[in-house]
Structures are given as C-alpha cells and as structure tokens.
C-alpha cells in the first residue's frame, strides 16, 4: 500500500476530532493548526515591518530628505527591528515551523501541553497589536535595543516593554513545551542520534527560549517601571547605571539571535539530504555543534558593548568566546557543502533557497568575526557595517532558511504544491536584490555612516557625500526590488491555495516521519505510532520504520 494511507482506526486514548469552526480554527489545540495561525500572523507582521523598512529606505535615498520626519523615522526603525525579531523571525521559526514539523518528525500525536500551545499563540496577536498600536500614541524611538536613558525620555517605551514582555512569555512557554515534547514523546526506537536534525535544532532553541527569555522579561519589567514609576535602576543620578540595561538586555538578546538561526540551520539540514538523496555529511558534528553553539551563546553577550566603557579584562574573554563560536558554525557549513558532493541533485526551489542561505549566511558569519575583534569592532560598532552584518545573518540566514522551509513543507501543510517556476523567479530576484541591498552597506559603514540616522549630510565632506548618497540611492532601489520579490511568493501561495497541484504524502521522496502520513496529516497525525529502527537520512536503504511500508514505485514529483 502507498505510504501514509490510513489502514487502521486510531487508538482509543486519542481525543475525538474538534467540531465547529471555533474549535477547529480559532481555539485549536492541534499543533498543525496552531502552526498555520503562527504563519499567518507572522506573515502579516513581516509585511508591516517590511513596509516600514521601505519607508526608511525612501527617507535614506538622499542625504537630506523629508519623506519622514525625524520622529517618524526613529519610530520606523525601532518598530521595524522589534517586529522583525519578536513578531516575525522568532515566532515563525519556533511557533510555526517548530509546531508544524517537530511533533510529526518525532512520531508524536501532538506536543506535551496542547492547551499551553494554544495559549502561547494567543499571546502573540495582542503583543503585535500593542507594538504597532503604539504608533497611534507615540511609538518607541530608541531602536529595538531601547537603551536608557534616551528610551526613558521618548514615549512608547512602556508600551514596547509590555508588548515584548507578552511575546517573551509566549516564547518561554513554547520553549518549555517543545523541550518536554522532544525529551519525553519521541516514537519508540528514536534515540537521540536517530532524530532528524531539525529536531536537534528545535531542542537547543527551546532550551534557549525557556532559559534566556526570563531574563528579558526581567529587563523589560525593569524598563517599564523605570519609565512609568521612575524606578532608578538605570539612572546614574540615583545609583543606577545605563550600562546595567545593556548587560541584562544582551544577556537575552545574544542567545535570541541563536534562537533565530538554529531552527534555520535545522531546515537546511532537512532540505539538503532530500534533494541530493544521500545522507547528510557529519550528522553528529552538526547535532553536537548545535548544542555547543547554544551553550556558548550565553557567554558572548558583551561583544555588543565593546564601546560601553567595559574594562579590558572584561572585554577579552568575550572577544575570545565570540571567535570560538564561529568554529562550530563553520563546521556546519562545511558539512552541508560536503553533503552536496556526490549527491544526485535536483535543483528545486527549496534547495535554491538553501544555497542562497549558504552563500549569504557564510558571508554574514565572516563579518561577524570582524566584529568579534575588539580593536576592529571599535571602528565598526554602531555603523552600517553592523547593519549589513545583521541583515546578512538574519535575512540571508534566517529568512532564506524560512523560505526554504516554506517551499519544502508547504505541500505537507496544505496538501498542494507551490509552482516551481515562480519559486525560482522568487529566489533569483530575492537573492540578487538582497545582495545589492546589503553588500554596499559594509562599505558606507566603514566610511562613516552611523546607524539610526534619518539624514546623513552632516557626517561627510561634499566629495565623499556624493559617493555615499549614490550608494544609498542604489541600496534603496535594490530594497524596493527585494520587497517586490515577496509579491511573487504571495501570488504563488494564493495560486496554490486556490487549486494548485495536489501533493500526496511525499512529493519530494524524503524519509523523515512527517512524509510518512498524508498531506495534510489527519488531526491524530499517524494511524499507528511509528517504530524507528535507524537514522532518517539513509537513502538507498529501506525505510527505517518497522510499521511503515515503502511504496516501491513512488517517484518524487520534483
């Protein structure tokens, strides 16, 4: 029989299916439905935050523009950054992909705490409404890092703190939920070293979410009461210190960037073996390096503070550890590239996005090393060099990874395929426009362009200003092309939803458990809980599941 056909009735202790529109789609406890809810909500905030970016770039197309007032510009970059981190990247990678894929990949029927899963999601829209709603009463202006004292003098900081606090609670709960799920609910026979690498990534990410986020909650509570009740933690006149905020904020926010990249690493590790049809090279190295990265991520936070007056004996260990964390990351990249070697490669859209990731994230990782060295960071800190770096790792890394995952798991989630040709157009336009937008930023940053400026005529003599202005104009145009490339995806998604080609259980011919059930899966995921016999990437050998038969005639659709 074909893979995934329901042959037997589900076992008795599965709850009956939800009935009615509200329990099926609104207050749902089904991890797959919750994943879709996260995708839609994050997608909406991605569009809003992206529009803010385009507004910012319009303002920066010339050195002395008046497209946005200084206040609005400040609000724009603050909400853009905050939204992209907390309302887009973290929710999509954890709440959406984590929910959609991880329980299926471990052969479970759902996560450990489905009610908490639902609750976690429903904290998310209010957080977003608070953050974007702040535009009506005065949005925060001091950047997504909201350093006091200046953040305490601008409106919107308390609202920002409350919004991010909510999303932090959501993130913590999801982290705890996912940790318990993977530790306790793996299918029989699925030892740690037989887990798919996306699950490894999810576990480490969940650990970071569960542990580091509480620290952010503390920081945000501190900032909130500082603005509303004038509590003096950050006020030097009353015994406090602005640098305290930086320590507490970055102690969370550095692990946060790993929350934003580790699941993307996991996606890469899933997509490559499927489309080169061979085992991933260096499974253990990739798995264990994720753990190493997760642990080291707690020990490097002050590399964001090298100009904040830290003593040199404090700067030194942070510099060393930051350089050290590049090693496990490099190992992954080399392993992924080696997996391409002697594969049988089908260059589908998901794989293209993976390659885009490999190219751009590697570049971003390299500029990260430039920023790790204290003397060089001193020059580059808080300039457009950093803006370039962060977009190469977060957009080049996380976003390309997210699109790879979206194209890959779209058929599983919806039962329909996305159009391959449109996918390729999307990729090439996005990849070229991305590099055109962010590569020149390294250059203008080194030459003197600071971050968070609405105009830039003051920082350059006339001759240099001509170069900087022309470069900024080029960046702006590229940024608009980059935004437009997303429309291709939107159109593709709509077409697919309206009647795209049906996918079947396993359109890609992959071997992880999510492909061993229907697309989309039934609410109980699997008719029988699978029994796992070996690892998930052994192409050429029989399927490693005792109770799932392989269809000998099945050929991947692409």
């Amino acid at each position: 029989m074909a893979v995934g056909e329901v042959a037997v009735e589900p076992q008795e202790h599965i709850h009956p299916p939800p009935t009615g529109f509200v329990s099926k789609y609104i207050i749902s406890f089904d991890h797959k439905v919750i994943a879709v809810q996260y995708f839609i909500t994050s997608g909406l905030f991605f569009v809003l935050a992206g529009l803010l970016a385009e507004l910012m770039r319009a303002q920066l197309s010339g050195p002395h523009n008046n497209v946005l007032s200084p206040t609005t510009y400040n609000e724009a970059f603050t909400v853009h950054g905050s939204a992209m981190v907390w309302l887009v990247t973290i929710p999509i990678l954890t709440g959406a992909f984590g929910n959609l894929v991880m329980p299926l990949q471990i052969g479970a029927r759902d996560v450990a705490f489905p009610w908490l899963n639902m609750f976690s999601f429903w904290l998310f829209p209010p957080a977003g409404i608070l953050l974007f709603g702040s535009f009506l009463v005065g949005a925060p202006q001091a950047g997504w890092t909201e350093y006091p004292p200046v953040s305490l003098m601008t409106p919107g900081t308390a609202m920002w703190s409350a919004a991010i606090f909510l999303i932090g609670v959501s993130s913590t709960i999801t982290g705890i939920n996912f940790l318990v799920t993977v530790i306790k609910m793996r299918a029989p026979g699925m030892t740690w070293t037989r887990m798919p690498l996306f699950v490894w990534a999810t576990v480490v990410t969940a650990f970071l979410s569960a542990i580091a986020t509480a620290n952010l909650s503390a920081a945000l509570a501190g900032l909130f009461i500082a603005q509303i009740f004038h509590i003096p933690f950050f006020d030097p006149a009353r015994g406090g210190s602005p640098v305290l905020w930086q320590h507490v904020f970055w102690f969370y926010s550095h692990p946060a960037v790993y929350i934003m990249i580790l699941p993307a690493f996991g996606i890469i590790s899933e997509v490559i073996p499927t489309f080169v049809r061979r085992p991933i090279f260096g499974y253990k190295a990739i798995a264990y390096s994720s753990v190493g990265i997760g642990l080291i991520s707690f020990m490097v936070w002050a590399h964001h503070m090298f100009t904040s007056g830290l003593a040199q004996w404090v700067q030194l260990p942070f510099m060393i550890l930051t350089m050290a964390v590049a090693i496990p990351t490099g190992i992954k990249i080399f392993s992924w590239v080696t997996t391409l070697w002697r594969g049988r490669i089908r260059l589908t859209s998901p794989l293209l996005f993976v390659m885009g990731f490999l190219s751009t994230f590697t570049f971003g990782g390299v500029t990260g090393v430039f920023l790790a060295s204290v003397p060089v960071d001193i020059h580059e800190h808080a300039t457009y060099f950093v803006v370039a770096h962060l977009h190469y790792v977060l957009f080049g890394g996380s976003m390309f990874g997210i699109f790879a995952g979206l194209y890959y798991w779209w058929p599983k989630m919806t039962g329909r395929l996305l159009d391959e040709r449109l996918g390729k157009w999307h990729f090439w336009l996005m990849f070229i426009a991305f590099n055109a937008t962010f590569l020149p930023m390294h250059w203008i940053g080194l030459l003197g362009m600071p971050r968070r400026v609405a105009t830039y005529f003051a920082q350059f003599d006339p001759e240099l200003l001509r170069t900087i202005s022309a470069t900024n104009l080029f960046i702006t145009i590229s940024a608009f092309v980059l935004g437009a490339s997303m429309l291709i995806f939107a159109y593709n998604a709509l077409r697919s939803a309206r009647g795209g080609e049906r996918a079947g259980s396993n359109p890609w011919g992959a071997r992880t458990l999510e492909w061993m059930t229907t697309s989309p899966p039934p609410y109980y995921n699997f008719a029988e809980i699978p029994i796992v016999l070996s690892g998930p990437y052994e192409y050429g050998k029989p399927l490693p599941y005792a109770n799932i038969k392989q269809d000998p005639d099945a050929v991947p659709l692409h």
Partner: protein
Amino acid sequence: MATHALHVDDALYEEVRGHRLLGFLLFLISDSILFMSFIFGYLYNRAAAPVWPPPGLERPDVFLAAVNSIVLFGSGVTMHFAMESMRHENRKRFVGFVLATIVLGLMFLGGQVIEYTTLIRHDVTWNGTTFGASFFTLTGMHGFHVFIGVIFLITVLIQTLKGVYTTQRHFGLTAATLYWHFVDVIWVALFSLFYVY
C-alpha cells in the same frame, strides 16, 4: 485535566505525570532566571556604589526579617508534612497541614507589609535610590510569588475536598509543594543578599 486523571490506566497516567513534572521543573528554572536577573542588577548597582547603603539610609532590620523567615521556613515544614499525610492517606491531617501552610504564608506577607511600611517611614522608597528600588522590586516579586502560592494551595485544598486526589495520583499537590519550596529557596537567597550581606 483533573477528572481525566481518574479514568486512565496507570501507564498513561505515569507518562503524562512525567511530562508535567518536567514541564513544571523547567518553569521553576525559568522563574529562577527571572529572579537572578534582578539579583544581578542589584549586585551590579551595589558594586558600583561608593558607599552602601547610600548616605542617609539605613539597612532594614534583621530581627523582624529573621522572625519572618522562620515563619516562611515553618510553612515549608508544614507543607512537607502535608505531602506525607497525603501519602499515608490521612485526609484530616493533610487538610490541617495545608491550612497551616496557608496561614503561615499569609503571616509572612503580613510581616512583609510591616517591613515595607517601616522602611518607607525611614525614607527607603521604591523610586528613591537603587537601594530601595532593588529591595522593593525583589522582595515584592517574591511576595507576589508567595501570594500566588497561597492561591495555588487554596486550589489544592478545594481539589482535595472534591476527592480528586488519591495517594498515587496527586500531581497538582506535588507541583504546589515544589512551588512552595521554590519560594522558600528564593527567600534564602534574598534574605542573604539584603539582610546578611
């Protein structure tokens, strides 16, 4: 869900209990991180201060706090005995010990109110200097946790009276006990950091 617990077989109950226990422990770890961040902030500001307490301010009185601590630790003892009573199927003693825990918890909170009003009368305030800010924020958070703990215990009491728990199946009580001990441990840290150090 509580009623669900009675209608499943032992194997499934144990499995789910394992999930809940791990989840609850992770929650407690996350909660400790919350306290640790504020403790870091307190120590950071204190280390940078040339003189501590700041000039003109007095340290809070150890005696009252010591008595209050004994009250709180006492409630930890009564909670322990409550758990023992549950295991030995002694309903009456169980209810008694839980009530004692609740009463001691509320006494602790009352003691904190006295402590707070005393300090405020001596110009140590929440929004004055970091001295008061750290003290009130951290002990306030702790007090809030005690208050939530009391509500937790009242809930456990109601569940017991409804006959939900058995000697084998009483995860809600286990969680409440763990939480209550957690609150005690946090208090050890805060007492040491504010009254001893």
